């Protein structure tokens, strides 16, 4: 994705975003509401047309997508098994393997509407990994889950990555949980404010200006062995974000 901008009317949601993701990488996009996170994902799957810039995909790239929310109309009957076979039918064995991988082996015969929130998201995950995607995209996939549920969900994602070697791109609000599970974090606010390893971003002044100090402590909970400070760059001004980030990254 190069120099990508997206505008809705006069409102520029994304401004010259450069972004790439490589095989086997877990990248998380964080950012406040309205920062263009979801728009970025939509641009990637082709849901919105960029006003400038372009999206380049490896030829034959298979994308697995887990939406933020899937509201099933009550009039639409749907078993888990049938849902997994959309849009392409899959064999019973393939479906079962995907459900096992996603951590919900026993739900195949249930109606989608009978699942709990956690089970539902895992079934969405199972469907997304069904055709062994090269890139797995998750749009706030843990929005309805409590913290242990979300943490378990992300551990599952890490395992899936380990087993299949796919790249994972996530958008999330669960800052600390998500960040601890990522190789790289991108902090987005219309443009890319800063990016780097979770520790670097958590220490970046821009990130702290957006999310406050509190998140760092929580991050430390999940990554004890990386829990130390990265130098004095604690200013909270939002001027020249990129330079400060680079500095923070260099300090690390």
């Amino acid at each position, binding site marked *: 994705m190069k120099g990508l901008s997206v505008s809705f009317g006069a409102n520029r949601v994304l401004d010259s975003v450069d972004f790439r993701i490589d095989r086997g990488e877990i990248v998380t996009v964080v950012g406040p509401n309205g920062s263009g996170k979801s728009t970025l994902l*939509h641009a990637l*799957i*082709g*849901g919105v047309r960029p006003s400038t810039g372009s999206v380049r995909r490896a030829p034959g790239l298979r*994308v*697995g*997508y887990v*939406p933020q929310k*899937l509201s*099933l*109309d009550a*009039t*639409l*009957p*749907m*078993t888990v098994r*049938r*849902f997994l076979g*959309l*849009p*392409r*039918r899959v064999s019973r064995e393939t479906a079962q393997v995907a459900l096992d991988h996603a951590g919900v082996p026993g739900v195949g015969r249930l*109606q989608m509407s009978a699942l709990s929130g956690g089970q539902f998201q895992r079934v969405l995950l199972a469907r997304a990994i069904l055709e062994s995607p090269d890139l797995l*995209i998750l*749009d706030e996939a843990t929005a309805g889950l409590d913290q242990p549920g979300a943490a378990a969900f992300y551990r599952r994602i890490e395992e899936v990555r380990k087993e299949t070697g796919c790249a994972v791109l996530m958008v999330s609000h669960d800052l600390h949980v998500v960040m601890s599970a990522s190789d790289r974090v991108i902090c987005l606010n219309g443009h890319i404010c800063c990016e780097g390893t979770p520790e670097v971003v958590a220490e970046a002044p821009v990130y702290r200006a957006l999310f406050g100090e509190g998140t760092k402590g929580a991050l430390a909970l999940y990554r004890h062995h990386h829990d130390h400070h990265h130098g004095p760059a604690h200013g909270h001004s939002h001027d020249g974000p990129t330079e400060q980030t680079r500095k923070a990254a260099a300090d690390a």
Partner: protein
Amino acid sequence: MLDDFMVRATLAGVGTALAAAPLGCFVVWRRMAYFGDATAHAAILGVALSLALSLPVFAGAMVVALVMATVVALLSGRGYAMDTLLGVMAHSALAFGLVAVSFLTNVRIDIMAYLFGDILAVSRGDLAVIWGGAALVLALVGWRWSALLVSTLNPDLARAAGIDPRREQLVLTLSLAIVVAVAIKVVGVLLITALLIIPAATARPFSRTPEIMAGLASVVGVAAAWGGLRLSYSFDTPTGPTIVCVVAVMFCLSSIVAALREGVSRRRTSGSA
């Protein structure tokens, strides 16, 4: 065999019900009932235009229904809420159609026949159009079935799978226009939506998958068409409305059975607990 008007009427009703039932499931799942109404009401304008221009009624009704459905699909999400937009379009089209018909002094037509259908007057030619249209709709919906289902579930899910949800919407729009055109003779423009959504709603409580629901809805639709025809013949009642009455009663029965079943299973779970 086709010389008997009852045989022709039965075949016309069955053909329409077969095409309407699976499409009606999508109308229900996507909450497009009012959309179907608007398309159907617009068809009366098409009827008036085709009579004025001495064109086949099927063609005129279908073209205007198609234009209506496309305009509504394009306009939706641009300022007005969908139901307001459909309310304006549906009733304006119906009113303009009725006024247009009144200008046609040289043709004496029974407007009731187009509002409520005239299934007993179905000719061999009509039958060919009805079954041709029904086959086309079934082929379209069958061909796009999975893509339509995914687009109905979630547009982003569809895009990620390489499906363009707007194209699938177009497939539905086109199918709807065809069904409206073929159903005019059978139940008339005012009752077409009933043939779309009531069989689907009747099938819902007994369906585990979308395919079962579409299949059951077809069975319900065909049974209603056949039963309605018989009843209207016995009791000398208007045929189109009788068919809709039969399917409405089936819906009530289905709802009652579903409610009873739910009560039983709830009692069973609380008993075992």
